[in-house]
């Protein structure tokens, strides 16, 4: 039975709405009640550790796998139960899944010519639209190549062109940059954003890389153990993660567990002074970003608004614009500090030497 509320609840500016979507495998839940709304004409990244259910979610939205429960609304219409070829949702696979027996041009024309709804039978129109799409994704000159004869980046473009030429209002991308080498990955990030803007479609881009998710998404959804843990723009997500788990997954916070006691946070490494930033959470935790910490000699006194702990230097890792230093705290935990080299020349720390690790209490984030 279809209820009127199916439509009343539909947000007109949303292209996709997920309501309490469930999916489990042999009793083990992969999606444990997903609620999300994806806006029209936007770049959304879906970030999650491996095993968080992000590929499952994408496959459920595309219709390759059924949802066990919940509703999926696409362009205001319920699509759970609709077979994939009637959904009108594009899908770009991590391994590209190009048709190996067709040329680049034939791969791109295939959907237009063969689809059930509104197939384009006029050869000239097909050729024209394929040509435009080839120009858009930058594949000119490769039209007649076999897909075994092009590089990884070019395959990626063919996969994208093949989907975009059918003009879906949403495209799901399953780790689309995962199969490319690092250099190409960075270049394709920009290209993907540009191509999306020109086509005006919504991209839902699944990735396990926090830098990729933050760089690409207008909105970032964080998936954790089958639930949406946070949905925010990149800036908010980075500065105010909604839970200790999200913060841990962003890979830029030192996190202490412990208890909140009036004016301070009691952690295994001592009492830590609190700032104003609070995030309601079931699990109390204290987080400080890697790049907010400064390293000082052991005997330097902290200022009044600063928090200080001690650690012994383990190693550092040079990554061009920044250097990450690792310290062992007294409880054995590793503490990471990111120093941007534009602010200071790299210093040489003494191995196993004791240093003071200091940050402003206002920079800390407390979950309680």
């Amino acid at each position, binding site marked *: 039975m279809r209820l009127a509320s199916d439509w009343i609840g539909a947000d007109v500016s949303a292209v996709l709405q997920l309501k309490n979507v469930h999916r489990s495998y042999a009793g083990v839940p992969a999606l444990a009640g997903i609620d999300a709304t994806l806006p029209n004409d936007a770049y959304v990244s879906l970030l999650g550790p491996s095993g968080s259910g992000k590929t499952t979610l994408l496959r459920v939205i*595309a*219709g*390759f796998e059924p949802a066990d429960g919940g509703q999926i609304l696409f362009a205001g219409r319920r699509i759970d139960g609709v*077979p*994939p*070829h*009637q*959904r*009108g*949702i*594009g*899908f770009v*696979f991590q*391994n590209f*899944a*190009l*048709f*190996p*027996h067709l*040329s680049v041009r034939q791969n791109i024309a*295939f*959907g237009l010519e*063969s*689809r*059930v*709804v509104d197939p384009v039978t006029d050869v000239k129109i097909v050729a024209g639209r394929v040509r435009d799409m080839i120009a858009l994704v930058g594949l000119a000159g*490769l039209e*007649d*190549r*076999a897909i*075994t*004869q092009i590089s990884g980046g070019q395959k990626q473009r063919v*996969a994208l062109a*093949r*989907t975009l030429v*059918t003009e879906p209002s949403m495209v799901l991308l399953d780790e689309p940059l995962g199969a490319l080498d690092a250099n190409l990955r960075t270049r394709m990030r920009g290209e993907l954003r540009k191509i999306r803007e020109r086509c005006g479609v919504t991209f839902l881009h699944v990735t396990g890389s926090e830098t990729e998710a933050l760089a690409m998404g207008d909105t970032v959804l964080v998936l954790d153990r089958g639930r949406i843990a946070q949905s925010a723009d990149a800036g908010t997500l980075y500065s105010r993660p909604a839970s200790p788990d999200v913060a841990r997954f962003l890979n830029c916070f030192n996190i202490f567990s412990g208890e909140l006691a009036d004016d301070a946070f009691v952690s295994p490494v001592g009492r830590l002074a609190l700032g104003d930033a609070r995030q309601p959470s079931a699990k109390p935790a204290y987080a400080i970003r890697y790049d907010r910490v400064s390293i000082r000699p052991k005997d330097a006194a902290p200022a009044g608004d600063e928090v200080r702990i001690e650690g012994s230097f383990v190693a550092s890792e040079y990554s061009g614009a920044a250097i990450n230093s690792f310290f062992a705290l007294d409880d054995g935990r590793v503490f990471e500090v990111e120093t941007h080299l534009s602010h200071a020349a790299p210093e040489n720390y003494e191995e196993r030497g004791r240093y003071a690790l200091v940050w402003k209490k206002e920079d800390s984030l407390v979950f309680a």
Partner: protein
Amino acid sequence: MNATGIKFGLGLYTALFIVFLYGPLVVLGILSFQTGPEGGPQFPIIEWSTYWYRHLFGLTPPSRIAPLPIEQALVRSLTLAVMTMVVSTVLGVTAAQAFRRKFRGSGVVFYLIVLGMMVPGVLVGLGMALVANAFGIDRHWWGTAFVLHVVYTFPFAFLVMLAIFNRFDPSVEEASWSLGVSPARTFRKITFPLIFPGVLSAMLFAFTLSYDEFSRTLFASGRDLTLPLAIYGTFSVEVHPNVFAFGVLTTLFSFALLGTYAILMAMSVRRARRVAIQEEA
């Protein structure tokens, strides 16, 4: 033993293996060129001639040796092999496609299919004859024997296709669906071209197995004989080198079949490559 010794031993073993594998074929080839009609199937060759080949086609003067009664049997066997090939391959492809997803009872169904190639042929043939008698069905090569040929060759086609689908990447099908293409059209335009080499192999299996099937056909084919039965029938009187000449011709025919298979295979592979070469030229 040192390395050269091992190498020598293995080489000798391989040589012997090849001799025993192809020896009969070579002997058959040589004896088919025996002179006729007085020459028999034995060494030494009295005189080299193509007499028995001409005898096969009725181009020799009449002699006491009757021509091989194989003309109609050959047509029957070829027709039967083509019918079997088509039906078994279609069944094999569709059954293997069904097995890509686990369904309830799939294990039982799998063994039921494979049983067709496991059970002894003579028994199945006899069983079919008894069943046909009990139900009053006339036995014919195109009826009862055809059913047994399909039961026998279907598992081979099925197993070949199962192996092909095992290596098949289902995401290309999902990609096609997500472009709005129906599953039926996806199968025709995407899946089938990709599994086509496997389909060719399944066809080859079904054809050759049916073409020289003996034991099942013996009881199930009724009055009109297929080729293997007709040839066997001539042995019971006296063996003349015309059977060898015919053997050589069928072998050549099989080679032609294999050649066609190889060419079709190569074409499906090369088409993509040629396009690329033109592009670079």
